[in-house]
């Protein structure tokens, strides 16, 4: 059984197509990233998983529970951290978590709430009113709210947007430990290096469609080329190499290479052409490059 199952989901908001036939599956225990530019439909898809958005057609299930027909089962199985920072100003941190727990029918949950407060660094703020917390602290409370019913599937919609480095690292360490404990994690983020480091599989969305869906390793291998950056002290690039190069603002040349053996070959040609190399750097493939390429490939053509 898939932790998250999305089959041919369509959703329009008036004239705007938010989701145009999205299908994907996330296996239990996976760490899955949903990437894409603003307006790609990531948040709509997540909202549909939580029942906040009702799809025009298609099927969504969490841990085998259909989100519409068995909404109670589905909502108990998923914890969603919304993108926008929202809170109820009437309550303290602990009240917020106790109330959220009660909504799931869990009224004796103090031990787990204490643990969440502890692990998210909120213990000293338990009695503070939500209004008095900083943005980062409010974000932590939202994470705790999503986890208060111990859902097997956790969905984080851009949890690190506008969050300082320390909290970002603490948050990822925490989410990693949840994943290690068996929770399925789905996240969206604009920080591609985060997705690259954390996620085993990635879906890229554009204009309401999935345009790439594969393991992180395969996406990196298939779409990304390696590059070397060379700064010349003397001489001009030979034409054969100039063809596959571009100038960077720093004055270095960015040269596409096929593999590490190719580096030797390029250096030999540079020497032949009388170039003197001032500095040399070989870059690993980066998700950002893959992302830009895939998004570019799916630009609407005139």
């Amino acid at each position, binding site marked *: 059984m898939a932790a998250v199952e999305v089959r041919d989901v369509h959703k329009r908001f008036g004239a705007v197509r938010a989701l145009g036939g999205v299908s994907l599956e996330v296996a239990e225990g996976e760490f899955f990233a949903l990437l894409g530019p603003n307006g790609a439909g990531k948040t709509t898809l997540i909202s549909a998983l*939580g*029942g906040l958005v009702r799809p025009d057609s298609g099927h969504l299930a969490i841990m085998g529970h259909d989100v519409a027909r068995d909404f109670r089962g589905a909502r108990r199985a998923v914890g969603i951290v919304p993108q926008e920072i929202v809170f109820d100003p009437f309550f303290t941190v602990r009240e917020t978590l106790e109330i959220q727990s009660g909504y799931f*029918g869990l009224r004796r949950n103090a031990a787990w709430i204490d643990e969440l407060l502890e692990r998210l660094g909120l213990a000293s703020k338990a009695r503070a009113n939500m209004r008095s917390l900083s943005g980062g602290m409010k974000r932590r409370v939202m994470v705790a709210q999503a986890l208060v019913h111990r859902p097997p599937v956790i969905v984080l919609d851009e949890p690190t947007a506008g969050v300082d480095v320390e909290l970002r690292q603490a948050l990822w360490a925490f989410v990693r430990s949840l994943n290690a404990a068996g929770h399925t994690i789905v996240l969206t983020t604009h920080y591609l290096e985060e997705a690259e480091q954390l996620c085993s599989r990635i879906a890229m969305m554009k204009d309401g469609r999935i345009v790439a869906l594969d393991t992180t390793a395969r996406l990196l291998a298939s779409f990304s080329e390696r590059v070397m950056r060379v700064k010349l002290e003397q001489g001009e690039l030979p034409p054969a190499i100039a063809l596959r190069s571009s100038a960077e603002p720093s004055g270095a040349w960015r040269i596409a290479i096929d593999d590490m053996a190719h580096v030797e070959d390029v250096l030999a040609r540079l020497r032949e052409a009388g170039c003197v190399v001032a500095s040399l750097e070989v870059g690993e493939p980066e998700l950002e490059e893959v992302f830009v390429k895939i998004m570019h490939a799916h630009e609407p053509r005139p």
Partner: protein
Amino acid sequence: MSGFPTLLYKEVLRFWKVSFQTVAAPVLTTLLYLLVFAHALAAHVQAFPGVPYLHFLIPGLAMMAMLQNAFANSSSSIIQSKITGNMVFILLPPLSALEIFGAYLLAAMVRALTVGLGVFAATLWIVPIPMQHPLWTLAFAVVGAGMLGTLGIIAGIWSEKFDQLAAFQNFLVMPLTFLAGVFYSVHTLPPFWQAVSRLNPFFYAIDGFRYGFFGQSDIDPAASLAFAAGAFAVLSWTTLLLLRRGYKLRH
């Protein structure tokens, strides 16, 4: 276990935490009405034979406060949650439309009855009035508060901005309350306005509520109760339909 008791608890806690504003203030306003109108109108208005105007006024004003506060509770809670965005915390848990409806409705009724009790506790020191049929009084208090609590849920769901809610309150709730016979007996009106009053469900709530005190009313309390309960049922059914469809809450 269901999340309904917690949502009800949260809704009650929400107004109780600011009870100075949500309970004490409406009680004071009602007492001011009583003071001003009783003195200004007592000599001019004869409502029911044998019932002093001051006595006549108290149940009507109490019911008016209850109706307005039932409406205010559910409508302001929902619109605040919608505008600040924390409605998601109620929409994401496994709560059904009926559970959400029940919690907002009951919390509105609790606030209305608390305000009603507050008004009586305060007026008891000034003018103790009799209560001949406590069960009728209670029945109309419950149905009246329920009717407006439900209307408040609809208004909260429908409004997207505070001024839309204010319009709902000022152009629908206020006129209907003021034209429901709070300050006068409907049979003192010209026939046309009597007929208009009979289309107003708030009138039945107030008239029947008053019957519980004095054993006198403009129309038969059983008919009033049927009419008010009918309006409550129609509004409840509408609200449940809106919540099931996710109207303006789930896109």
